[in-house]
């Protein structure tokens, strides 16, 4: 099995989950209504839990322990897509990101349940229930706010327009697509993207929202290769602030 390709895949999944989990956790305590505050926080916890699971697999493959890997690297060593590192904005943006990202996540995990690399397929199967809820949650909200008031529709449309170039960055191909597909570890970003477009279109069709013309949209890529927006490093500094204050300590 090609370890470099495998690790590249694991890093991008773990980093995506770690960063979006942190971003979404910023809403805890300040959400638009109490029940949503609770639901969104649960999903943020799930994401961080997912990343922990993948960092553990990386650890078993010889990388440092999860805390070191997750909290002591610099931005250019991160493989997450730029989409997940953007600030939370207002709730419309966070919801649209949740909808777009989580649909890709669900399909990715579905594909990974059949991965030839067993530790991955095991995790993917275990997380099925959580991811299912995330999608139910996202769909209910997008259908609600995408049909409710002029303001909610306009806000969601604006956020969707802003988010789409970054969302396409989720599917930035790695150097190892062929190896991963040949070894039946992961079928690849292109296949994932096709299914993703179908799935989100199905939901958006039931709303007043228009999916921007994807053929005319340039994807915001680079994240998978360590090129990030100005927002990632400050977030990483924050995440590691306590750990770095005394790296010898057990917290």
């Amino acid at each position, binding site marked *: 099995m090609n370890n470099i390709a495998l690790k590249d895949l694991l890093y991008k999944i773990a980093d995506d989950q770690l960063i979006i989990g942190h971003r979404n956790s910023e809403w805890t305590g300040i959400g638009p209504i109490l*029940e949503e505050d609770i639901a969104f926080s*649960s999903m943020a916890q799930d994401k961080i839990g997912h990343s922990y699971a993948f960092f553990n697999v990386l650890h078993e493959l010889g990388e440092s322990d999860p805390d070191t890997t997750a909290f002591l690297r610099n931005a250019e060593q991160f493989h997450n897509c730029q989409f997940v590192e953007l600030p939370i904005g207002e709730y419309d943006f966070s919801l649209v990101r949740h909808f777009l990202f989580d649909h890709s996540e669900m399909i990715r995990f579905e594909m990974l349940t059949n991965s030839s690399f067993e530790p991955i397929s095991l995790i993917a199967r275990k997380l099925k229930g959580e991811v299912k809820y995330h999608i139910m949650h996202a769909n209910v*909200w997008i259908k609600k706010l995408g049909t409710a008031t002029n303001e909610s529709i306009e806000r969601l449309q604006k956020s969707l327009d802003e988010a789409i170039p970054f969302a396409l960055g989720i599917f930035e191909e790695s150097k190892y697509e062929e190896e991963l597909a040949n070894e039946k570890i992961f079928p690849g970003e292109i296949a994932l993207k096709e299914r993703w477009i179908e799935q989100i279109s199905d939901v958006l069709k039931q709303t007043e929202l228009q999916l921007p013309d994807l053929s005319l949209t340039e994807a915001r890529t680079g994240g998978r290769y360590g090129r990030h927006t100005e927002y990632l490093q400050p977030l990483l500094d924050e995440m590691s602030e306590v750990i770095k204050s005394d790296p010898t300590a057990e917290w």
Partner: protein
Amino acid sequence: MESLDPRIARLEISDDAILQPKEALDQLVTYEVFVQKKDKAAFEHVGIVHASDVEMAFIFAKETFSRRFTCFGMCVVETGKIRITGYTDNDNNIYDQVAKVEHGDGPEEIYEIFHLKKRGKQHVHIGSVEAESYDNALYKAKVLYDDEKPKFNVWVIKNSDILFSDEDDKAIWDTLSDKKYRDATAYRAMDKIKKFKEEQLNQ
């Protein structure tokens, strides 16, 4: 506003904003939530959520009421759609006050019946009846479900008003095993205290 909280700092709250009560009313409707604590167990009332509609109520209820304790199924219904009897106390059975209503003015449909068997506890689902109105359903419930013990309050709900969790979505309940960090048992540290005390003694 400068804040020690980095996420609050990012909200860019203006310093001179004055505290004012907001104008528009946005009080949402409430939904009553019921859970199955064990597989195939009766639905039991747990509380309410605020929501826009029954689908969203379900989404909210799931994390509000099942994130910490095991749950095998859930259902939600708009509070206003529940018909409730008066409350009794001591050994007075509310069914003794229920009049004979043999028919109703609606088509026959399924009504779900919930009993309060002890004051201070939660309402529990006891069964369903086919009836032509709420009053008709209550009377049929009295015939079917009134055993010796007193019932202090009864709720009658049309089955069609309730959103039940889907068998196909069963996986969503099976997520607690990975969340041990929400259990008190995950935080044992007595050995650390013991070691610390020993070190203090040896110094």
